[in-house]
């Protein structure tokens, strides 16, 4: 008899168990629900040989395991999201020793979970990523100083001007991205700024200047997307990518789970 734990994917309200019939969680075990007061936790049983603390330390560094686990986790969360209007998705690998331990924790976190569920009820998460567009042509090159200065000094002056120009350009793009962010805020019930992604991860040749999540009422989605289109016309030096709706991962953050 191997040691097992209870893996939690999400907590929500009004999740009919029959909507989750046939959904498989980690290691293809069936997903099931645990009820506590008006909360429903969506869970599955996992083997601690794979999901125990020591095993996780290794597995989390294995990109293949991480990808498989993340995609399975997201697949379950998406199914739950489809079955209800209020869901607090959990981050990867939240595991309790047993169903009872999970239930106890739900009781401890009840008030916080209630706040989160009220916040996300009937709303979806939209991701907005902004990239600096590649400039149309090379920027103006700094000219060398007047005669009298040596070639060494001229070189330094040129480099200084180039560095300053680049810094100014970056600062300007960041300022514009910030303005863009605030232009979109009125269309959302809540927003969260995420860390911009490294170019090697985004795979883009231009730097990312904004990575934000917006919590948008389902009934106001068209309006929000219109604000994004307006921003596209307004900020011609920036490229905007919108993606959604996501389950509200970024808005279900508790101080501790």
């Amino acid at each position: 008899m191997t040691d097992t734990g209870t893996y939690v994917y999400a907590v929500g309200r009004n999740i009919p168990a029959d909507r989750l019939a046939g959904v498989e969680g980690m290691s293809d075990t069936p997903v099931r629900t645990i009820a506590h007061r008006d909360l429903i936790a969506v869970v599955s049983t996992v083997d601690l040989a794979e999901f125990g603390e020591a095993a996780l330390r290794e597995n989390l560094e294995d990109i293949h395991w991480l990808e498989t686990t993340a995609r399975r986790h997201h697949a379950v969360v998406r199914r739950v999201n489809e079955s209800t209007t209020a869901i607090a998705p959990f981050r990867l690998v939240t595991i309790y020793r047993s169903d009872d331990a999970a239930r106890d924790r739900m009781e401890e976190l009840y008030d916080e979970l209630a706040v989160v569920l009220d916040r996300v009820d009937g709303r979806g998460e939209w991701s907005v990523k902004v990239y600096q567009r590649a400039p149309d042509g090379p920027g103006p090159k700094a000219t060398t100083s007047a005669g009298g200065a040596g070639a060494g000094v001229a070189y330094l002056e040129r480099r200084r001007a180039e560095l300053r120009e680049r810094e100014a350009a970056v600062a300007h793009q960041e300022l514009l991205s910030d303005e863009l962010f605030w232009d979109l805020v009125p269309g959302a019930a809540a927003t969260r700024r995420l860390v911009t992604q490294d170019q090697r991860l985004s795979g883009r040749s231009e730097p990312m200047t904004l990575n934000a999540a917006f919590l948008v009422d389902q009934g106001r989605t068209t309006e929000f997307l219109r604000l994004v289109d307006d921003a596209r016309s307004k900020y011609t030096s920036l490229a905007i990518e919108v993606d959604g709706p996501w389950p509200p991962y970024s808005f279900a953050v508790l101080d501790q789970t």
Partner: protein
Amino acid sequence: MTDPILPFAERIETNADSIERDLVKLVLTIVELVRQLMERQALRRIDEGDLGDEQVENLGLGLMRLEQAMTSLREQFDLTPADLNIDLGPLGSLLSN
């Protein structure tokens, strides 16, 4: 449950044929990094104002020659400035073009 930070180590795969090119790319990336840091440091020293005119001129000439040497090395191995770009997280992407 602690939040894991995923370390992405950039792996340069080498086989017998591309060893030279991969190692050159790595070495030049580091040299380019150092060159850029030196330039920034030199400009800071000059701004501090404790260098004489001749020192500044010699510093500039040295850095200029270093830039020329780097360009020629890059071209010799058919590497673009983008090939040598490396993002160091909080330190930011240090190449200027």
